[in-house]
Every structure is written in C-alpha cells, then in structure tokens.
C-alpha cells in the first residue's frame, strides 16, 4: 500500500509521542518553537504545544486518515489499549521550553531557609557599588541591542551572579536601592529592580541558589525587547496614544525573539520575557494563556515587575508608596496574578520594606533599616524627624522591642521618597550611620 502524505487537524489533547507536527493553529513565529515542523519526542513538547495551541496539524502517512477522526476511545479498546496508554501532560505543571529545566515551586522538603550573614549597614556600601555597576552593564546590554548586537548573555549572567551573592549575604541592602527611582534611567533601573525583587522573592519562596539565579536572570532580561522599540516611543514624555501603546506591548515577543537568537540561550529567560504579562484569567498578552499554561518563573517575575512598575510611575505622576502596589497585587490575586504567589509576594515585601520612609503614630518620621521576618509590622527604624517634623538627634528604634503601651511608636503610614525633605539617596550615599546634630562637633556613628 503506497504511503499517502496528508495532514490532519488534531486537538493538542490528543497528541502522542512520535506524531509529526507540520502546522499549528497560529503562525510559528508567534510560538516558542525553533523548528517549523518536528516529530514529538517527549512529553515536554506536548506540554509546550498544549500551552500555545488549541489544535495542530500532523502529517499522516497512512492511506486512511479517517481513523484519527473516529473516537480514540473506540480504537483503544482491547489489548492495544492496555499497552499504549499515552502519558497525559500534567496540567498544573508550568510547561517550559527546556527538558532539563523544569520550572516549579520548591517542594516543601527541599525548601531552603536563608538568613542574613551580614548586617544591612555593613552590606550597603557593597550593594551600592554592585547596583551602580549592574546598572551600567544593563544599559550597555540594551545599547548593544539597539545597535544590532546580540544580547550579551555572559554580561547578564555576571550581573546576576553579583546580585544573588549579595542577596544571599543580606536581603535588605539591595532592597534599599530599588526604592530610588530615576525617571531618566527607567528601563535599565526597572530591569535591575525586577531582577533584585524577583531574586528576593525566590529566596523567600525557598528556591535553591541555582533557581534564584535563573529567576534573577529572567528578571534582568524580562524587558529586553524594549531595546527594539523606537526611542521616540520608549522615552516619550506623556501618555502613549493607542498605536504607541500597542507597539510597547510588542516588547514581549521582541524580547523572546532576541533571546532565542543568541547561541548560549537561556530557556527560562525566554519564557519569562515572552510570558511575564500573561494573566491567570487569560486576558494577558501576547497570547492570552490560561493560568496553567503560564510558566511558573514568568508568574514569579510578573509579580516583581508589577510591583516595581506601580511604585515607579514612568512619566505621568509621582511614584506611589509600596502599599499602593501591594493593594493592587492583593486585589488582583486570582485574576491577574497567581493567588498563592501573590499572597507570598506580599508576605515577602512586607508592609514596610527596607528603605521605606514612615511616619509613626506619634508623628515622628524615620526610615526602615531592616524588615523583621518575625513581625513585618515592627521593623527597625532610623528616626530622623521629631513629631513636629523637625530634624532631631537620629536614633535607631527596634519597634519589635518597644513596649506594647508605647503605641506612638507604631507605624502610621508609609511616605514616598522626598516626603518632608527626606531623600533616601542621601542616606545611601553617606551610609547607614547615625548623624549627630549637636551644635558643636558633628560626629557619625555606625549603627550596631
């Protein structure tokens, strides 16, 4: 019997190993697949197809293609059915592009608990240098892409190694630096902040150092596609028109294409760049993936991205405080963000993250130095203004150690950077030292 080549439309739920996929229900360019046609060799490929398509076209080489059109359950009755049970894709596992690189939350038994190995005060100068050099590297990577170079993956990995090593020594020092927003350097700063916040979140979730680095790399490169957006749109002051807004949204596909084109590609980063704006209610972009189709690492980075974007405010108005972003994440849990991850993210950031400027109930103003993992509402605060908002002798108060009746020392609200003339930049520049305000000899004392 001569083989007759043909094609058959088939639902992705019915795909099996060995089938030859020749066409999809959408253009190949809109998917993660490098090859435009392939034989399915493993279940990960089926999962990747399930994530991106509803049906595909397979090549048929038999004389009778109608057999696939019949109910497969009927075909699989009898002995054949027992010997060829298809491995069904696990719906809850986030499918990935790599077979060696499964993305998933760490199982309870393998969660890592991290503790700070060094104080925030001691780590801050090193963190400041790391942040500054990382920002330069990110700018260079983006500038390189603009002039036609490939994404510098080695440079990006070096940045991530430095960030993650710092975070593993102390999780609070780099968090301070993410609070400073410079509108002129938004894209580079945002990429770096998302990398730091994603890695901090991954540390909080108990991921291994290897996974933290993968997530941090994906966070750093999540917006790399913006380097392909025309400067006049990217740097536009004021509101985008509808056309410009749609062009901006293309950065996910552009980023995926850029990261796919490098020789030493990182599949997690490709997933993250492509999927970080997908929503669990299926209304995200670019592909309106369903919750179970969104790669886990993209969900993790998507939260950090949202938090930094909301607290940054690119052009239009002043940045808002952290609580505004947490309110949005909380209210959009299960709609835009994965519910469990959203709640964990809020726990990770806490109500008053390090570097927050806060007003106490008694009226004093201070800066949060360290978050307190056991009681996020009572961090250690450097008090700088008295209850009349006048400069005062600076002192450090550990709110978790104050007496319950001293309610004046509870935090009333978070303020934005610059409130009452308090600028974080000044404190980062000078280091976390107590400034003596006595009229005679000014002295500085390192915090203990």
């Amino acid at each position, binding site marked *: 019997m001569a083989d007759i080549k043909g094609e058959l439309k088939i639902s992705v739920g019915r795909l099996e190993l060995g089938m030859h996929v020749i066409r999809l229900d959408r253009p190949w360019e809109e998917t993660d697949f490098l090859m435009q046609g392939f034989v399915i060799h493993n279940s990960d490929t089926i999962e990747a197809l399930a994530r991106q398509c509803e049906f595909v076209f397979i090549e048929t080489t038999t004389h009778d293609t109608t057999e696939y059109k019949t109910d497969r359950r009927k075909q699989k009755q009898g002995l054949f059915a027992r010997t060829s049970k298809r491995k069904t894709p696990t719906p809850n596992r986030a499918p990935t592009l790599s077979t060696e690189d499964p993305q998933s939350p760490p199982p309870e038994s393998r969660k890592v608990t991290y503790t700070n190995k060094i104080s925030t005060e001691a780590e801050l100068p090193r963190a400041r240098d790391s942040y500054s050099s990382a920002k330069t590297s990110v700018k260079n990577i983006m500038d390189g892409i603009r002039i036609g170079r490939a994404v510098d993956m080695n440079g990006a990995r070096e940045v991530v190694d430095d960030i993650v090593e710092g975070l593993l020594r102390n999780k609070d020092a780099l968090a301070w630096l993410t609070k400073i927003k410079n509108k002129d350097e938004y894209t580079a700063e945002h990429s770096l902040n998302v990398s730091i916040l994603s890695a901090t979140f991954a540390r909080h979730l108990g991921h291994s150092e290897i996974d933290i680095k993968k997530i941090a790399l994906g966070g750093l490169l999540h917006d790399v596609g913006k380097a392909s957006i025309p400067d006049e749109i990217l740097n536009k002051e004021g509101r985008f028109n509808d056309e410009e807004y749609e062009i901006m949204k293309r950065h996910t596909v552009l980023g995926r294409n850029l990261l796919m084109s490098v020789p030493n590609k990182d599949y997690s980063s490709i997933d993250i760049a492509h999927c970080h704006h997908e929503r669990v209610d299926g209304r995200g972009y670019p592909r309106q993936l369903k919750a179970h189709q969104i790669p886990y690492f993209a969900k993790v980075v998507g939260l950090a991205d949202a938090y930094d974007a909301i607290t940054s405010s690119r052009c239009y108005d002043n940045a808002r405080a952290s609580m505004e972003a947490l309110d949005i994440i909380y*209210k959009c849990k299960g709609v835009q963000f994965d519910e469990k991850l959203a709640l964990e993210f809020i726990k990770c950031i806490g109500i008053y993250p390090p570097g927050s400027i806060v007003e106490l109930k008694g009226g004093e103003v201070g800066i949060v130095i360290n978050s307190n993992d056991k009681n996020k509402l009572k961090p250690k605060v450097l008090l700088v203004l008295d209850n009349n908002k006048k400069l005062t002798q600076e002192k450090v108060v550990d709110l978790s150690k104050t007496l319950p009746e001293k309610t004046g020392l509870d935090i009333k609200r978070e303020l934005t950077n610059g409130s009452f003339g308090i600028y974080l930049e000044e404190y980062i520049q000078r280091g976390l030292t107590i400034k003596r305000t006595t009229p005679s000899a000014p002295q500085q004392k390192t915090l203990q």
Partner: protein
Amino acid sequence: MTDTNYSEQRSQPRHLCNDQFSNSTLETDDATYQLQSINFHHQGIGLFGPERLPTTGNYAISFSCQDEDSTLQIEQLACILIYSNETEVGNQYGVRFNLDHIDQEALSKLLDIEKRLKNSEDSNGRYGLFQN
C-alpha cells in the same frame, strides 16, 4: 533638608476594598469600562485594570458593597480622574467623586461604605497576612 510645606496628595488614607466590594463600572459618553476596585475613601477610589481609559470626558461610576445585612449601591455618581499611571502591567487610576451636587442619601452611603471597609480592614497589616 526639612520641607515643612510638604503635604500628602491624599489627605485621607483609602481603605482596602474587601471581597464584598464589587468591581467598578465607569461610564463615559460613549463607552463603559469595568475596573478592579482597589481602595476607597468616601471622597474617591483607586481603580486598576488592563484597559486604558480616555483621559478626558465626563465619567459616572457605579459600584456596590455588601455585608450580611444589606447592599449599599452607588449608581452613576459623577466623578473625575485625578491620577493615572498607565503601565504595561496594567493601568492605575485615582478617581475623585464629585460631591458638590450629591444628594444626602448617596453621601451617607459613601460614608457607610467607608465605615464598613474600615471595620473590615485587618488591624494586623491590612491583608491579614501579618501578626503583630
């Protein structure tokens, strides 16, 4: 360094909209938008959603807040956009209600909603995730 002229843009804190607070419907002359209600004060509300709103035009907002006994419904209350932060992750808007010509019944509903949200707010850190 001290800036005594500094004042918060928002004079009153907004309370987190609880699960009994509906999405908000914002109507303009020619379109209707559904947005997630984020936080609320009787003078205004924070909204978030994937769609962009036109920045000019007349708006009317509707939402409701339930509790065990009753539902407080606000229908087509005139309002203005006072803040917008449009990002790739979603669009954030601050809305101020026009209270100049509001009737007493609607105003008392707004105040009651605020009271309900204040009472339902977790004293241990707003989201009920942190212990004092």
